[in-house]
């Protein structure tokens, strides 16, 4: 199977940002000197200095270290939650697109249900119910984002199943499983891939929201938790801009980078969007 991927300049910028972040996430200790968990009550709310590049927080932790170590949590949420939602969404979309009739109807009404429910409140309720751990958050986000994927995969499947090479597969006596996996899926995959990258941005954004609202995993360092602590410790009152801005900027850059790559992929797979 061949993918012909052509990224435009925006896509390349996005990809570079993500690759740098992946490097941070994999080897954070190569970049920072401070242990992000190390507290120092004699050095709280210090401004940026040579010792602490981005200052310290309310318990004297190095904010630059927190930022770099936080990359790991954000990317992990992005990749794993999207992995879950793409898998679930693709299965639901393929089945409901391929089989007409009752299976399709039931699956699609179920998808509609998930599309219609406001995501954030449901997410907060679910996280509160299952407990505040990073894995629970990942699973909850993953299970909330699949409905969008299911819709896209279904619509694409509906158009591909009408092509004569699918009917030809039936004439050869292929099983439904073979037709779905080897004939429909490869033709749907580019679109799913582009959409998955776009979804990563929203997954990261949801993790930040959940954490900021106080339902994050307290044992994990993440940008959302940083923002949450900054808010809790009234960093604004201390005019500790170095505490609030870096995680915010990091989130924006990451979400933006994923969006850039996603749009570039979309353009590359969808010739109608391509600029000439």
């Amino acid at each position, binding site marked *: 199977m061949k993918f012909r991927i052509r990224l435009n300049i925006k896509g390349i910028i996005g990809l570079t940002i993500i690759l740098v972040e992946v490097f941070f996430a994999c080897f954070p200790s190569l970049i920072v000197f401070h242990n992000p968990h190390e507290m120092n009550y004699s050095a709280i709310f210090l401004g940026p200095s040579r010792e602490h590049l981005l200052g310290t927080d309310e318990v004297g932790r190095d904010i630059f270290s927190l930022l770099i170590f936080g990359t790991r949590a954000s990317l992990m949420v992005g990749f794993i939650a999207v992995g879950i939602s793409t898998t679930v969404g693709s299965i639901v979309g393929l089945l409901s697109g391929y089989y007409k009739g009752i299976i399709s109807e039931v699956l699609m009404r179920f998808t509609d249900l998930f599309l219609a429910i406001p995501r954030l409140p449901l997410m907060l309720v679910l996280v509160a119910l299952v407990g505040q751990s990073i894995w629970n958050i990942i699973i909850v986000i993953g299970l909330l984002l699949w409905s969008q994927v299911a819709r896209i995969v279904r619509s694409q499947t509906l158009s591909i199943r009408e092509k004569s090479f699918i009917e030809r597969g039936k*004439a*050869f*006596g*292929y099983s439904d499983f*073979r037709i779905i996996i080897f*004939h429909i899926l490869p033709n749907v995959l580019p679109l799913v891939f582009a959409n998955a990258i776009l979804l990563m941005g929203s997954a990261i954004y949801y993790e930040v929201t959940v954490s900021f609202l106080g339902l994050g995993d307290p044992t994990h360092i993440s940008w959302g938790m940083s923002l949450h602590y900054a808010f809790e410790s009234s960093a604004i009152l201390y005019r500790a801009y170095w505490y609030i801005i870096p995680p915010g900027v990091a989130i924006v850059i990451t979400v933006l980078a994923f969006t850039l790559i996603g749009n570039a992929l979309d353009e590359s797979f969808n010739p109608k969007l391509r600029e000439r």
Partner: protein
Amino acid sequence: MVKIEIKNLKVWFPVRTSFLKSLYSKKHQYSHAVDGVSFKIKEEEIFCLAGESGCGKTTLAKAMIRLIKPTSGTVRYSGVDLLSIGKNEFRSYRRKLQIIYQDPYSSLNPKKNVFNTIAEPLKVHNFIKNFSEGKDIITQILEEVELTPAESFFGKYPHELSGGQRQRVSIASSLVLNPDFIVADEPVSMLDSSVRTEVLYMMLRLKKKRKLTYLFITHDLSLAWLISDRIAIMYLGKIVEMGPTDEVVSNPQHPYTKALISVIPRPTSGVKHKKIILKGNPPDSMNIPAGCRFHPRCFEAKDICKRAEPSIVKFNKNHYVACHLLSQKRKP
């Protein structure tokens, strides 16, 4: 020997009506795509099914190889009733009944190269254990469809091939399971005219070599005339005339056939042919006219045509026609 025989085959598609309508009318509406067709195709024969678009040719052919479920009727292939046997049992007949599609652009999976396209059916039907084993078979079949050197086509994807080449790959993958009955659904109508004859003659050569039986669907009567042994003319889901091609073309009996044949382009021989141009369009297959289904467009229609539907009767040896005028002419 009769290869395949169908009796009174019907394919009706239910028409979706709105929810409100279904409340006050209990009657289901059906589109009568194929409405009671019977014929036999002999072994190693080229049987041509002709008619304008929308008359149910393709539906009929697909119903014969069970790609579409017929509403009623029987299909017997070498004496076996294909419609009554179970799904698993039918799988062994799958490889014997194959189809060649009209559009070479959508009949090949764009994500599979030529080798895998042809190897997949072989693997599914346990002709080969793994993909590399099929090399000899695939080389041979590609040579048969005149794609040489065969090896150079193995890794090519459909978008790297021309229309004619794609159709050859498509034919190769249909033939690789050694079928003996092939439905050719307008196999050359989308091809460029220079390629068309090449592919057509290749199909005829393959037929001789592999002892195939073709059901050739076409709307092009001159093509049917050129290649087929027998021809059936279809109109709105029914056969109006059927017989040996030469006889039907030289001595058409049904007004519809007469009209179709009058417009075949012929090299001028000094004789002027009168062209019969039919008025209007074929009616909707949901509201089939009462009586003879051709009467609203027929230029010879009589009173009886509006009242009773003609049954198909023998005109002379092997030549069958469904028209009231015929029996009227005979009576006196």
